[in-house]
């Protein structure tokens, strides 16, 4: 029931007045229902046949008159429907899905459900983008930049000025580390350079723990804390900087140490930062001896007090810390 001149009208009208189309749609649907009921009436009257009248001619005349009425009703409804369908128009050819909409024409839905999966992936990526935007605005409120770069430095200056604290000669780093190592008698610090110029320190604290500290020039990048009796080298004989400790207490201490290296920040004086971090780490020499300052017990959920306050170096359980 489509005519060629409706195509153009449909394309133009589609975007502009969707409301009209919907109205005409509902009228067209009721037109279809009217047409169906008039066609049904025709067949019903045929089925019923001639009604009982006195003469045969009377019966035939009445039957024919009724039949004609019904057919005229069908014709009327059909014309009405044609008129209404013209108002509805065609769905626009240029649907906004472009090429991906052609995937929906694939009939084999259970073997290759490409279109539905595509829609899901699109919705997922939209949600992900939205959540990432929220997260980045929240995270930007708390500045965690530890280097000396100024945020929003003018575009002219940025490529020329290198942050001076990120490019330090390895000899200077070695000197600073060995000086700090000499400060604390019960802590020994060994320096390795297994991958390039980044230093990796192996800090042995008494007979309590061994910490592996990965540096980036004089900034502490990450740290792993393991027990005194655990293996620090992997099969090739190199320092194993990735494996977590097998003991829960040292996994907790690793988390606390990561918090500490983010806490101690002084972009212009990284050697002070390293010294503060080592002083903090040294407070773990009494990891198993100290009781919690708050609750007085040694154990909480099977763990000794693993948190050390950043200022006072007092021992607390992770759940007791203030």
């Amino acid at each position, binding site marked *: 029931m489509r005519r060629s001149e409706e195509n153009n009208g449909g394309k133009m009208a589609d975007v502009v007045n969707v409301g009209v189309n919907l109205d005409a749609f509902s009228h067209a649907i009721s037109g279809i229902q009217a047409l169906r009921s008039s066609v049904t009436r025709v067949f019903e009257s045929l089925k019923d046949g001639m009604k009982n009248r006195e003469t045969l001619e009377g019966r035939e005349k009445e039957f024919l008159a009724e039949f004609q009425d019904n057919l005229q009703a069908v014709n009327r409804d059909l014309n009405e429907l044609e008129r209404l369908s013209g108002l509805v128009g065609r769905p626009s050819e240029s649907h906004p899905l472009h090429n991906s909409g052609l995937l929906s024409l694939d009939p084999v839905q259970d073997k290759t459900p490409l279109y539905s999966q595509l829609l899901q992936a699109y919705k997922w990526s939209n949600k992900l983008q939205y959540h990432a935007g929220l997260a980045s605005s929240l995270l930007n409120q708390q500045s965690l930049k530890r280097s000396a770069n100024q945020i929003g430095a003018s575009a002219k200056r940025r490529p020329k000025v290198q942050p001076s604290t990120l490019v330090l000669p390895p000899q200077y780093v070695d000197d600073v580390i060995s000086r700090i190592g000499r400060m604390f008698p019960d802590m020994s610090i060994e320096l390795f350079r297994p991958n390039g110029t980044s230093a990796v320190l192996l800090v042995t604290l008494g*007979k309590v723990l061994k910490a592996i500290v990965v540096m980036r020039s004089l900034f502490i990048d990450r740290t792993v804390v393991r027990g*005194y009796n655990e293996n620090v080298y992997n099969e090739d004989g190199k320092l194993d900087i990735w494996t977590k400790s097998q003991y*829960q207490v040292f996994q907790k201490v690793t988390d606390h140490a990561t918090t500490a290296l983010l806490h101690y920040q002084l972009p212009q004086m990284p050697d002070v930062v390293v010294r503060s971090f080592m002083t903090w780490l040294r407070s773990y020499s009494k990891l*198993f001896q100290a009781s919690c300052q708050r609750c007085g017990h040694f154990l909480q959920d*099977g763990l*000794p007090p693993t948190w050390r306050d950043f200022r006072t170096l007092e021992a607390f359980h992770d759940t007791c810390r203030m």
Partner: protein
Amino acid sequence: MGVTCVCQVPVAEGKSVQQTVDMLHKKLEQLGSVKQGSFCVDCETYHATGNVGQPSKLLYVMHNSETPLSCMSLFEGGPCLVADANFDALMSKLKSHFQNAKGHKVESRGSRYRYCDFLIKVGTVTMSSSARGISVEVEYCPCVVPGDCWNLMKEFMQSFLGTSVPELPSVFAAKPEGLFAAADCVDTMTQYLELFNKLRKLQIPGSNVR
């Protein structure tokens, strides 16, 4: 290998050995421990037949399921040798020097529990298939120095042993460096040996132990 403490738990009043062991298991599970299989520590006695006239020294050969590939042999209060599992075959070849005192084999068998970084082993000590007592071994794995973590271990043992908490094992205090030397498996075995000898000397009582 951490710091271990082996102690004996007296059988509860009016209960059998098995019932006391079950009570301990229940207390451990209430704390939140997870059962992780079973363990076995056994000890065989050998007489040294070398010197006539001198009292024969006793050599104890012990195995621990925690270190299944090792075999430890020690003289009471004397040196200890840690060898691999073939040592048993070697002992059978040394029949002329060391006689196996059959029927003196003592073993402790039971379940092994893990709570956070603690390993708890509750076992029934049997000698020639008669139950003699209950042994409890508590190991704190991350620490190697007994002096550091003794208070911590005592607090933990109090939570499920109640009043029968032992003192610091003498094996640690007897070392030249004292409490601050690193602990190892030899100390564990020495403690088990002391416990087994104590239980061996107990005569088989009438009704208590069944």
